[in-house]
């Protein structure tokens, strides 16, 4: 596929934006790494050689009885010293870089939890004796995936809503605008507190709930573009040519609105990450025990004697948001028609 000269120019401006490009590279690497969190931080070995057989505990569940007659047919616990000794006697195990899952409770700590950074726990442990580095890797992944899911879903709804408003205009637009104003005034946080008093919100419930209120981000921009776009002559021509309303909206007007929308996306993404972190911090977010950056911030506040918790949370969350904002700035500049490649 060949890019249009405009897209080529935008790509060139983006590439010339060194800070943005580096932020994108670092973010891509971190995100890719966190996608494979199970292979990096896990309390199961990657590979076991036992009596001439290969086992892949990362991908499969095995019973302990698979590793000798002396064990019970329960799910294998690879942190169990007896099982480890049996595996070491009959073969070997290859462990991930960080031999802890986000919910593994570390045994034999040198200091009471939260214990300070050590060779075994480079970022220390939290107050439930779980490895902070493992939790950060999983928490990063949850944050980014949640952010992406919320951004994509909210943008899709927001663009559709804005398109309908701007395209039909008139009474539709008027009623819709008033509805958005009322909806915007809903006390989100209190509703969420009420919700979490009734059920324990999981990933999807939380996503759906935040979606109810975050789709309005893009509506205004898209509405404005459609109000302008519906009077363009080629849009009028398209209607005379018998193009259906949906066809006119998506084929002829939406591409104009996409520039404005794309410019907003990285900022919506960083906003979504922040929202999840703040809800987790307040305890209204993901269920207790889930790895989350917001929960780590809360732990840092509760354990001021263990500064590594707070500092880690600050660096990871701050770093992630800074990366996203740098990417966002580069994208915004790339779509800025006044910006020239220097």
């Amino acid at each position: 596929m060949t890019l249009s000269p405009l897209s080529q120019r935008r790509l060139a401006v983006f590439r010339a934006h060194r800070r943005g490009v580096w932020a994108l590279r670092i973010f891509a690497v971190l995100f890719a790494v966190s996608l494979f969190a199970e292979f990096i931080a896990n309390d199961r070995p990657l590979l076991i050689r036992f009596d001439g057989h290969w086992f892949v505990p990362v991908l499969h569940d095995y019973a302990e009885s698979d590793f000798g007659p002396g064990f019970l047919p329960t799910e294998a616990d690879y942190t169990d010293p007896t099982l480890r000794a049996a595996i070491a006697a009959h073969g070997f195990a290859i462990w991930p870089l960080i031999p802890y899952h986000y919910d593994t409770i570390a045994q034999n700590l040198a200091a009471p939890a939260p214990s300070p950074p050590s060779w075994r726990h480079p970022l220390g442990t939290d107050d439930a004796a779980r490895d902070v580095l493992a939790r950060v890797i999983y928490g990063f992944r949850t944050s980014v995936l949640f952010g992406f899911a919320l951004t994509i879903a909210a943008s899709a709804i927001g663009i559709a809503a804005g398109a309908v408003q701007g395209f039909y205009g008139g009474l539709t637009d008027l009623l819709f605008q008033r509805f958005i104003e009322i909806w915007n005034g809903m006390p989100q946080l209190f509703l969420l507190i009420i919700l979490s008093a009734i059920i324990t919100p999981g990933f999807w419930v939380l996503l759906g709930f935040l979606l109810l209120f975050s789709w309005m981000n893009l509506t205004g921009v898209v509405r404005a573009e459609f109000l302008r776009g519906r009077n363009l002559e080629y849009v009028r021509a398209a209607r005379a040519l018998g193009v259906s309303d949906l066809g006119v909206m998506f084929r002829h007007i939406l591409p104009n609105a996409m520039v404005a929308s794309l410019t907003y996306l990285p900022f919506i993404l960083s906003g979504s990450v922040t929202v999840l972190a703040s809800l987790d911090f307040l305890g209204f977010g993901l269920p207790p025990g889930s790895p989350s950056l917001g929960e780590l911030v809360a732990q840092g506040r509760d354990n001021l004697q263990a500064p590594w918790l707070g500092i880690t949370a600050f660096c990871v969350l701050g770093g992630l948001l800074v990366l996203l904002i740098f990417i966002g700035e580069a994208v915004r500049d790339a779509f800025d028609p006044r910006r020239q490649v220097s």
Partner: protein
Amino acid sequence: MDGATDRVGARTVPPLLDVRGLKKHFPIHGGVLGGVTARVHAVDGVSFSIAKGETLSLVGESGCGKSTVGRLVLRLIAPTAGEVLLDGERIDTLPAARLRMVRSRMQVVFQDPFSSLNPRLRVREILAEPIRNFGLARGRADLEKRIFALMDKVRLPREAIDRLPHEFSGGQRQRIGIARALATDADLIVCDEAVSALDVSVKAQIVNLLADLQAELGLSLLFISHDLAIVEHMTHRVAVMYLGRIVEIAPRAALFARPAHPYTRALLSAVPVPDPTALRRHVPLTGDVPSPIHPPAGCHFHTRCPHAFDRCRSEAPVLSPRGPDHMAACHLAE
């Protein structure tokens, strides 16, 4: 051609397009509750007809409602009152689903060749869209064949098929616009200031192209323009509009030779003549076009008419015959 034989088709054959008493008033909202505080009388009772293969030019100053007439005929906007008949069938009251089928029979060429083409679509896609919409092509090969045929009709080189609109000149873009209007085998094409944005030389090319296409395909054209000089070369009949009403409608030769309405005379005297020695009687118009929100009572033109008398201020003149097929709305000549 002289005035009487300018008409193509006899009176007994129903015209392709028949417009009767067409009105469009745009409401102006204001006040605390957003109620209608005033109305713009953009089109205020317009009637005309176009026979098959005929060109009717609608001329007038900007703001006289001529483009609104075009959009009403195409049913891009709904009329406030009046009837639009295409081949004897009323299209102003058709439901949306039926209207879509009628749309294939009337097409439009817009003024600005730079904004009337979607800058993101290639020529192939621009021309394929109407063909697909009305299901006119059988398969990909047939679609491509039709696109090439359209490009040939408007004298665009075939190798331009995968180019984007910005790679063309204004005249070429207007050719793409015309090809798009031809794509549905329309009977009627509304040219809304179709050549006004072009250079003089290109203007002539496009006018000639339209005339050739009309002869070749038997098209009817509603040619909306503010430029009488261009109209003179290509039209069968001319309708002159002033402030939402037709003040004179006549075969071309009759209108240019014997204009009956003072406004038409003023317009004609404003057409530049490329001969510095020519002696001309100049009819200057003073003042501005009155606001269509509060059009003057009686004859709309009386505020600027050099011959206005008392009756013009109170009673609106109706179109009355002035010659074969020649009608004018003026108290003066009655």
